[in-house]
Every structure is written in structure tokens, then in C-alpha cells.
């Protein structure tokens, strides 16, 4: 390979590499040396990158380097950004956790607000609740309960690990100054949300 050809291949390589957009052939031709054989330059450059981790591709706008498609699965970095449950869903889940098995009208009664099917669907889809038989009452409404997945997601080994309802339902004024260890009291619930989840008790 002549030195000039080698030189033009290097320049084309650098230009395509540094460009923020695909480089049109016309722009390359303008930049190469006067006597350059454009096709020979591009053939030479393509050959350099064949089978490598980076490939030279010809796209609509011109020439572009791209990482080899076969490497994509190994290059991809997945960042998990967990969603938060909407507040209504969280309240509903909490009521089911404490009152299970419980019917939807009962949940509405406890929340003091009506409940959309959408909310129940969210909890069902997330695998946090499951229907558990029917109540022997007019209309035989479905009873709802939490799933093992619920326990796993909250890092609980069983339902008894939930803070006791009695501890939660203390007079808020009394909660302000916890006499009991925090683990047994719900005082921390009244403070602003801590940055990190409370460790399992």
C-alpha cells in the first residue's frame, strides 16, 4: 500500500471518527489529498475494521463508525430505575396487608374513599395481592390477601413482621416522643421519609 493511500486512509478514519454526524462521501473527497483514489481509500478503511469491535457503516447521510451489532447484548448496560406505587395503590396494599382477607367494599370503608378497578389491577399485576375465596355475604364479594411476593418485596419473612396495628394506631401526640424502641413503635412514620428503607427488624 502506498504511503499516500495509507495517509488518506488515516485521515478518513479520523474524520469519520470525530464527526458528530455521518460524513458524506463528498466531504471526504474534499478533505483527502488531490490524487487520492476515493474508492481505494474507503475499501482500505473498511477492510481495517472488518470483523472488529467497531465497524464502518454506510448510512443514509454518509459514513459512520458503529459498534459491531453482535456485541450489543454485552455492551448494553441496564440501569434499573424502580417505580414507586401510586399513593392510592400503596394505601390499598397496606389495608389488605392488615385486614386480609378483606373485600373491596371493606377496603373502601376503611380508606373512606372509593377504589378504582385500575388500582386493584396494578396490585394484581405486580403480584402483590391475590383473590382468596369469597365472603359468605350478599353478593359473595371476592376476598383479597397479600402474596408471598409481597413479603419478599418488602423483605419480610412473614406477616407478623409487619409493625403491630396497635403500635401504629397510638395517639399521634404520644408518638412524637417514643418511649419504646423504634422497632416497636411507629414514631418514625411520622417523620419525613428517610432516605433509605428501614432495615428489616
Amino acid at each position, binding site marked *: 500500500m502506498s504511503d499516500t493511500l495509507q495517509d488518506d486512509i488515516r485521515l478518513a478514519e*479520523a474524520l469519520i*471518527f*470525530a*464527526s*458528530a*454526524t455521518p460524513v458524506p462521501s463528498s466531504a471526504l473527497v474534499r478533505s483527502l489529498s488531490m490524487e487520492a483514489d476515493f474508492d481505494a481509500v474507503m475499501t482500505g478503511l473498511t477492510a481495517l475494521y472488518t470483523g472488529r469491535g467497531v465497524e464502518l457503516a454506510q448510512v443514509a447521510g454518509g459514513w*459512520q*463508525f*458503529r*459498534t459491531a451489532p453482535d456485541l450489543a447484548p454485552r*455492551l*448494553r*448496560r*441496564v*440501569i*434499573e*430505575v*424502580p*417505580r*414507586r*406505587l401510586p*399513593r392510592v395503590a*400503596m*394505601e390499598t*396494599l*397496606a*389495608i389488605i*396487608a*392488615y385486614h386480609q382477607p378483606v373485600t373491596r367494599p371493606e377496603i373502601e*370503608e*376503611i*380508606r*373512606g*374513599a372509593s377504589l378504582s378497578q385500575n388500582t386493584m389491577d396494578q396490585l394484581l399485576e*405486580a403480584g402483590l395481592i391475590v383473590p382468596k375465596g369469597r365472603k359468605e355475604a350478599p353478593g359473595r364479594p371476592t376476598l383479597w390477601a397479600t402474596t408471598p411476593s409481597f413479603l419478599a*418485596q*418488602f*423483605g*419480610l419473612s412473614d406477616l407478623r413482621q*409487619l*409493625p403491630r396495628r396497635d403500635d*401504629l*394506631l397510638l395517639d399521634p401526640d404520644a408518638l412524637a416522643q417514643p418511649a419504646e424502641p423504634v422497632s416497636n413503635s*411507629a414514631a*418514625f*412514620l411520622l417523620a419525613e*421519609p*428517610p432516605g433509605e*428503607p*428501614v432495615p428489616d427488624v
Partner: protein
Amino acid sequence: MAEKADTPAEAVPDADRLLLQLDGFEGPLDLLLDLARQQKLDLATISILSLVDQFLAVIEGARRVRLELAADWLVMAAWLAWLKSRLLLPPGDAAAEEGEVAAETLAARLRDLAQVRSLAGWLSNRPQLGQDVFKRGEPEDLTETDRSKLALDIVSLMRAYLVALRRANTMRVYRPRPVALWSVQDALARLKRMMRSLPDWSTLESFLPETISTPLERRGAMASALIAGLEMARNGDLQLRQDEHFGPILLGQMKAEEDQ
């Protein structure tokens, strides 16, 4: 120290050029450093004393052209004149010692500035990213965001529960609990149905429904049953009997022979 005193000041440039030069310097220290550098062409070593002479000569020349020279130039000139007077004293004198220390300080400052100059030059000579060398113009973003997981924690769950309970409490309007008392109508129907199956002269209590639990309900049911019994007795459907005051009230079927 002897060779310092007789080192001649370099030819002072003419006044106009000099003023232009002065404006080109970043302060007196910059000029001092530049003077020191110029000396390299003629002398193997430069003494602080000759440097002072040159600086004073430049400032003197500049003042002839422009009286209102910037204060920092004049301050430096005054300080250097003081330094020169100290450096010219015979060694061993306390004031001469003072001069030595001051000269050292000045030399150290010039050295620092020279170092900075050199480093700035060294940096400028390196290929700079975005000037001489270029990184990839079109980086690829290989990150992918997975939002399928849920962020759940016990504290949020508890807080949600408390919020729900508090809301329910504040919304609940006081409504007297409906007292489901056994009505006279209920008692009538039950007495009529049961009269046939119970033995004669059963007590009023035995006609009360089993579901009754509270004392209030019990008293209410008794009253309803008694009224229903009286009503039926009046219609001649049954007989009532009480053997003593506050004794049990007994219900009997109406019999033909006792009709008289």
C-alpha cells in the same frame, strides 16, 4: 557580591516603546521576570541587584513619559530601591541581613512565577483535546433503563396505612347505630308459628329468637313477645297466665273446654 554592584543596567529602550511594553506586562513581577530572562543573552548569572537597577531604570524612563504610572509599579520601584540600599551595605550588618532575606523572598517569588510560566508553556505544547486531537463525535449510549421493578419499603406502606385510616376517621360522620330490635310484628309471626310446636304453658322466653344476645335486645324482645301474646289472647288465639307477681308468664293454647 562584588560583581553584582558593577553589573551595568542594560540599555534602556526608548520611552515610547517602553510604555507600550509596560502595558504588555501583567504587573511588576512579570516585568522583573522578563528582565531576568533577557539578561541570559549577555550574562552567565544574573544578580538581584542588577535586576533591581534595570527595573528602576525602566520605571524611571516610563515616568518621564507618563507621570500617572500605576500605583503597583511605583510601589514595587520603591521597594526595590529600599532593597538595593540594603544589598549595598557591607555584609554582617543587621540591615544587610534584612536585605538578603528580602532578596531571597523576591527570588522565590520569581522562581514560582517562572515555574508557572514553564508549566503553562508545557501544557500549551501538549496536543489538546478539541484543538489538536478529537474524541469520537458521535458516542453511543449503551444504557437502557429498566422501570419494571417496584420500589417498595415498609415505611411507605405504614405511612400509606396511617394516611388511609386518618382520612377515614376525619370523613366518618356520626350516625347512631341502628338498633335492630325484635318488633311486635316479628313476635306475632313467631308466636303464631311456634304455638303449635311447643308444649302447653311454655314460658314467654322460650318464644324468643336464638339470635338475641345483648340484654337490651332481650328486654325489647320480651316486651314485643308480651304485646304480641296479649294481642293474640285478645283475639282468642291463646291464653296467658302468670302465677305470681313478677313470675314467669306462661302461654297456653286456647282450649274449647276452658272457653267457659
